[in-house]
């Protein structure tokens, strides 16, 4: 089993097939939608975790392309240098996915990598520069 994070792009008016349905049913993939941005006459984006057998993932992504959509596998990740963090919470102001949150009992910052969209807003927002981008998917 393998798990990857992918952004899919859907050009407006072009996609007619229920792509996620087919990925799940025909390719036996587990999809976890992390973010969806769909508006009229705009390229729609879908950020998903895809989990399944490697060959199924490959075939599934081929199917996405065949439908006129495009995709990009996440190659970067956000690294939280916790030992230098003061847990001020400034990064939580900009995190769109709830990956960065404050624990309301001990006021620790918590970082849920699974939810991270690697939008990099926290990298800019952190006053202590303890959030950084790492190339490659490994932590």
């Amino acid at each position, binding site marked *: 089993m393998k798990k990857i994070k992918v952004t899919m792009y859907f050009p407006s008016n072009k996609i007619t097939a229920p792509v996620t349905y087919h990925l799940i049913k025909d390719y036996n993939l587990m999809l976890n939608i992390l973010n969806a941005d769909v508006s009229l006459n705009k390229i729609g984006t879908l950020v998903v975790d895809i989990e399944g057998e490697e060959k199924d993932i490959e075939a599934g992504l081929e199917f996405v392309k065949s439908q006129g959509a495009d995709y990009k596998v996440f190659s970067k990740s956000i690294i939280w240098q916790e030992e230098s963090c*003061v847990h001020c919470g*400034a990064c939580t*102001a*900009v995190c769109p996915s709830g990956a960065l949150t404050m624990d*309301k009992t001990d*006021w620790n910052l918590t970082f849920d990598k699974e939810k991270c969209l690697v939008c990099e807003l926290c990298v800019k927002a952190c006053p202590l520069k303890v959030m950084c981008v790492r190339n490659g998917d490994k932590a």
Partner: protein
Amino acid sequence: MSYKSFDEINEKIKTGKAVVVTAEQMIDIVEEKGIRQAAKEVDVVTTGTFGPMCSSGAFINFGHSDPPIRMSKVWLNDVPAYAGVAAVDAYIGATELSESRGMEYGGAHVIEDLIAGKDVHLYAESYGTHCYPRKEISTYINKNNINQAFMFNPRNAYQNYNAASNSSEKIMYTYMGTLLPKCANVTYSTSGQLSPLLNDPLYRTIGIGTRIFMGGTQGYVAWEGTQHNPEQKRGENGVPLASAGTLSLIGDLKKMDTRFIRAAVFQQYGVTMFVGVGIPIPILDEDIAEKTAVRNRDIYTNIVDYSVSSGPKPVLKKVSYEELMSGSVDLNGKIIPSAPLSSMKKAREIAVTLRELIMAGEFFITQPISSLPLTNTVNKLEIREDGNR
């Protein structure tokens, strides 16, 4: 009404009998036992805050070189320091930016590096005088080879501050953090019920000369802070409803700890410094006990629209810190996320550390030499064509 004196409390601290609690613990004690009993039992309440405080800096005396120099311009790691004070004294301000690295490094970083014991490059120029012939110097200093290095912060520990949002269509990068367009977030900066001046709203025990915990060591309240605004509107509990009192603080940089002083950069705004401050409040009487039991739900501020850059910024909502700290606020029927900029975790660490120092008999309380003013308002800077020369 029972009454304790500063001396009585210090005597208890000396003999290890003082009852010391944090401002958060005090809330529960008052809730459980009532104000009268709490005032009798508790001797000192400790507070804490750890937020970005721009109005900070340090005086340094470098010592004299041979031959000596009357430094007229000084750079520390390429950050300009103010040298218009005697021959080898300078003031490094926290928000000053590096001339070579811009916003990524500034005065606050120089201060943090000095506290950490690192070598800092000193470059100074002079026009040369008969008594100070040297015209240039380039060397390295650290906290062990300079004379005095004391932090002197003109405005710290703001008693309340507005929360920020942005109604415009564009993202804003401010000293209140990144403000998303269309009021998609709110930021605030406080330690709320743990904050020093919110626990002594009318400055009954915090005054000039008060010994405090500052940056990991003992410091003092030197004066009222700049922009001290005690006449701000207050609630029935005496707590100001917007930014009010401030403190000017002084402390020995050499004894500080980078756990409690941290340089910071706010995107596109610049450099600032997180300053850790804790102030002990002696429980002299019931009124003081009651004030130290203040809760986040009883402390209010305004959410202000930072997209308005001219004239007074419109108030979007009056809000309690309880609501802000819940993680979201209701703004005109829309639930939007609220995020802190001041570390509650560190504020607690400071209040707890100060409590332990007092209980160990290593930190004594001080009676102010003089009270902070209760009357004073803040002037605006007028743009005038002529002076009265």
